């Protein structure tokens, strides 16, 4: 089966600019996650969707980050405006059911560099 797709793979922007990332989860997976992975650290969950509803966005900096999952399939993560500290790899993951014990399937990530 096809894996989790993400685009773009790399993005370089200047601070205060806007950027958007796209994720297409594995077909049929109800749960979708966005993680931020800063160099030298483990991934940190930003937001979790169950179908098209938000389950957890407690660590999403809502003053600049937003995410949506239209029709419970694809998802976009937006940063507006970007700061230097947003430089990281943004990982999208999906799982078949409502999270829990299930393994998560990760995409290749989008590497964001903010200058």
């Amino acid at each position, binding site marked *: 089966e096809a*894996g*989790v797709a993400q685009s773009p793979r790399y993005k370089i922007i200047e601070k205060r600019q806007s950027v958007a990332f796209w994720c297409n989860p594995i077909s049929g997976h109800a*749960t979708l*996650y966005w993680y931020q992975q800063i160099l*030298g*650290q*483990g*991934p*940190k*969950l930003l937001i*979790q969707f169950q179908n098209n509803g938000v*389950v*957890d966005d*407690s660590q999403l900096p809502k003053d600049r980050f937003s995410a949506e999952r239209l029709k419970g399939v694809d998802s976009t993560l937006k940063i507006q405006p970007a700061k230097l500290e947003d430089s990281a790899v943004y*990982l999208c*993951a999906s*799982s078949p059911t*409502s*999270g*829990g*014990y*299930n*393994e*998560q*399937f*990760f*995409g*290749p*990530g989008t590497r964001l560099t903010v200058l």
Partner: protein
Amino acid sequence: AQSVAQPEDQVNVAEGNPLTVKCTYSVSGNPYLFWYVQYPNRGLQFLLKYITGDNLVKGSYGFEAEFNKSQTSFHLKKPSALVSDSALYFCASLKGDSWGKLQFGAGTQVVVTP
């Protein structure tokens, strides 16, 4: 607070030797623990998980992990390392207060030399 710790930033091992990557946990209630591996320029891949049952969990690519409640550890092991095992390994715990929310350790870089 639920958390995992990986005390080693890097582990170096010669090909053919046993490989151990350490993880300790601090969770309230029953621990649900996972290992993921990350190859360069690729997303994380699931290796194995401990939910309940046998303390020795077998996973993908010949890896296994031993859950030790008294030492609050969940070390990842492989009897004979391969050069292709060189990657970044993450231990993670499931947060009980948020279903499906994984909390990752900082990661351990494994370098296997020929």
